């Protein structure tokens, strides 16, 4: 019997605000010494009260809209009660049955086409402190306590580990694109919980659901699912049954393991947070959030294909990050009528290669390598001032120094030699120096002229116009 997986994902994404969700402490704790970004509120001290970070709500609503959700007018925080040392007030402010946004979707591009994954809800909550075990005990750092998080819950629409990976990557792309998340998964900017069951292909009832919590990379999501789907399939194929449980992913061993049930027997006793008034969200407010959203990656990708006649692959590459898409369009606008396709090629080719080598982001580099330089460079090629190989050198020099291509060409003396008499001299030298090749040519091996062109280019230090060189060689040889 063939089995298929049914997968639902919960994505917990930190929201990129300056301050925490309910207090004025800085939310940028990445490089801070432990317990330095704390105050009575995020330490849960007696008598402290939360005050809502308006910007966090705006950003979470924007994320909801970007995920095609509707924004609910009547939304509020609940207290989720449980005891743990990283949770200073012993309750987490979260949203239970009145989340800020519900019923959306996220499209992913699979090898067999676009798949639409339903988004059940996207709600807001606060992060906990961070626990470090070691030595003779555990240490808690509350810098992360109260950092705004959004939780996006998908419908059980995902059918493979590959789709799950695409979904996570797309979520990351989208949230980074709209400025809600840093995308720095190494720093814990996104965490994933996975629900997975398998069932005989062709059936519609759900199998027994297994939850895998706290995966912190897309790679772990994929690996854990590959392992878990295979494990469940084997169990079912052997005629045994599965038990609903929560399992942990062991990154080193590459396996999932049952978690001790005592820690999981939670009744969270949700109830509305009395310290925070309910939010009354107006249509105007929602409209303003929608207006704040940039053009989203899918729309931009499709527009790039349409408007600039780019291939699907180029359009996808140019919309992988918003800064790349911005750079491309700026380059086209400033490109003095140079074809968009050629500009795209320079960005996805040379620029991506140089970025990869230097480890910089396009946002940083754009300050040096101005978008207008690409059109300028193409103009120099087209006008015969430089040839292709020289153009690559000019581009790299621009990338490093921020000088414009024309001044680089001038300063370096890289102008192509288009003076016919100068080229003719190089051609004559080449003919004189290579009698054997000349004989081959004269004997009908017309391809031999390519070698002589190469010799002209070499002698001119690459500056001769190759077309002129070939023309001059013909004149000398055929004279």
């Amino acid at each position, binding site marked *: 019997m063939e089995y298929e997986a049914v997968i639902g994902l919960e994505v917990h994404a930190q929201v990129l605000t300056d301050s925490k969700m309910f207090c004025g402490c800085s939310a940028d704790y990445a490089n801070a010494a432990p317990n330095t970004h704390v105050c009575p509120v995020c330490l849960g001290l*007696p*008598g402290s009260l939360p005050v809502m970070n308006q910007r966090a709500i705006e950003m979470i609503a924007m994320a909801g809209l970007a995920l095609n959700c509707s924004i609910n007018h009547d939304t509020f925080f609940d207290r989720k009660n449980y*005891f743990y040392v990283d949770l200073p007030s012993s309750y987490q402010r979260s949203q239970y049955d009145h989340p800020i946004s519900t019923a959306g979707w996220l499209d992913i591009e699979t090898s067999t086409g676009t798949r639409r994954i339903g988004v059940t809800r996207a709600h807001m909550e606060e992060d906990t402190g961070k626990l470090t075990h070691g030595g003779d005990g*555990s240490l808690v750092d509350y810098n992360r306590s109260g950092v705004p998080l959004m939780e996006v819950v998908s419908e059980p629409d995902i059918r493979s580990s590959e789709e799950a990976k695409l979904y996570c990557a797309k979520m990351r792309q989208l949230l980074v694109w709209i400025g809600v998340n840093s995308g720095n998964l190494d720093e814990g900017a996104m965490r994933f919980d996975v629900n997975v069951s398998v069932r005989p292909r062709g059936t519609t009832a759900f199998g027994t659901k297994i939850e895998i919590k706290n995966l912190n990379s897309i790679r772990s999501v994929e690996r854990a699912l590959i392992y878990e789907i295979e494990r469940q399939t084997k169990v079912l194929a052997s005629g045994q049954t599965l038990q609903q449980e929560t399992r942990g992913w062991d990154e080193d061993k590459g396996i999932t393991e049952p978690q001790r049930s005592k820690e999981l027997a939670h009744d969270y*006793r949700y109830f509305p947070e*009395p*310290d*925070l*008034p309910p939010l009354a969200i107006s249509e105007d407010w929602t409209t303003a959030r929608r207006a704040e959203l940039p053009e989203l990656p899918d729309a931009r990708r499709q527009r790039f294909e349409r408007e600039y006649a780019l291939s699907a692959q180029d359009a996808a590459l140019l919309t992988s990050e918003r800064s790349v898409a911005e750079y491309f369009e700026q380059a086209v606008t400033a490109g003095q009528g140079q074809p968009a396709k050629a500009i795209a090629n320079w960005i996805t080719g040379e620029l991506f290669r140089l970025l990869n080598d230097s480890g910089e982001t396009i946002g940083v580099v754009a300050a040096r390598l101005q978008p207008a330089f690409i059109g300028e460079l193409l103009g120099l090629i087209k006008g015969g001032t430089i040839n292709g190989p020289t153009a690559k050198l000019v581009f790299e020099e621009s990338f490093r120094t921020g000088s414009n291509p024309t001044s680089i060409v001038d300063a370096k003396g890289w102008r192509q030699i288009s003076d016919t008499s100068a080229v003719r001299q190089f051609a004559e030298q080449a003919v004189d120096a290579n009698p054997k090749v000349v004989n081959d040519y004269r004997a009908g091996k017309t391809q031999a002229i390519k070698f002589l062109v190469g010799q002209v280019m070499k002698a001119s230090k690459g500056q001769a116009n190759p077309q002129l060189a070939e023309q001059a060689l013909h004149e000398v040889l055929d004279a």
Partner: protein
Amino acid sequence: MDFQKLTIAEAHTLLQAREASAVELTEAALERIVAVDNAVKAFLDIDDEGALEMARAADERIAHGNARPLTGIPLAIKDVLCMRGTTTTCGSHMLEEWVAPYDAMAITKLKADNAVLLGKTNMDEFAMGSSTENSAFVMTRNPWDVARVPGGSSGGSAAAVAAGEALGSLGTDTGGSVRQPAALCGVTGLKPTYGRVSRYGLVAFASSLDQIGPFARTARDCALLLEAIAGADINDSTAAREPVSNYAAMLDGNVKGLRVGVPQEYFVEGMEPGVEAAVRAAIETLRDLGAEIVEVSLPHTSYALPVYYIVAPAEASANLARFNGVRYGLHVEGENVIDEMELTRGQGFGAEVRRRIMLGTYALSAGYYDAYYKRAQQVRTLIRRDFQQVFAQVDVLAAAVSPTIAFEIGAKTDDPLAMYLSDVLTLPASLAGVPGLAVPCGFSAGMPVGLQLIGRPFDEGTILRVGDAYQQATDWHLRRPELAAVPADDE
């Protein structure tokens, strides 16, 4: 100057006229505390030096001619309000040694006015109780009869004013914890509208009910205290932006034509005849002063008690969950983290607090939430609606604060339900979030009786005006208990 008879308004006049200094007032308060607090035990902590330092600063401000009404006035603070650098115990072993690192907003405001903060007063543990007997530390006595309770949970703050140890004090009222002890100790006490005073720095019992309120000898003094501590606060999202009035300026002594509703449901079975007689007489006095007395009904009154004992413990079960021994407060060693939390909470909390945490946890549990917590919130809406409807007919409500006078120490400690009934007349206003004022209105068996005046949301001005007019026509609030000085003992 007779410190024990002085009101805040009178003391302010003396200070402004340089007939007394803040230091003299503070010394008088500290002397009185030395003389009688061994008998009353209103205070948990007295900071003589700190108080005198504040008094000296107040005298300087008075000399500069920019004194506020509370500048130089000696006040006492319920030990549930955080005061930077002092222990804030909440009457619990759990926080016996916890030093608050910040000031509650109400404290910040009093300090900004250069009031003199004498010390922290006793209370039922985490404000849960109606007699102050649930304090983990000492038994506060009713200054009118030291064999009786002062009421609670703000018993220390009420007793301190009744015993002449402070000119005013702050308490907190969740289900009656200012009004009931005020009535039982024969002082004036105000529970403001929910949201009128910032709760920032008030250690939470039930977040949707807690309000800080003043005790003093007169309604006028309560007006001065309220104006000082009220107002919006960026640290408290539930603090209202409603403008703060000059409440004292609204006390014109005139209640002519004011419609006073007398809710029939508030004359409950089990009300002591002496209490009912005093309250009915007070209502007649208001009629004599020109008020129009109207019989009214608040049909859902009887549900207030069960609703309160679901909502308040539910919120408390979450609010008190932070006391887990990890970062502050009591820590009991155990085998592992969970074990330590259980031991800490089991040993740190007293019986009543544990009872309410259990009640609240149960009410919020999966499978019970709808039947208890959710239903209670629905009924709370009906109770709130009762008040909205009745305030379309009348301007204020008048009734008793407590159905009984102060009971004897120990009389109800074994019967939680009997204790809970002590608040049956104050709970509805708490659930509706409307303001209530307790004013002394007579005596029964030698013990004070309180009249409760309930007003529209944010209309503290009107109930204070009625209370003030009543106090201009009567002298119950001027009576003082005979308290013999008692030397220090080792209770």
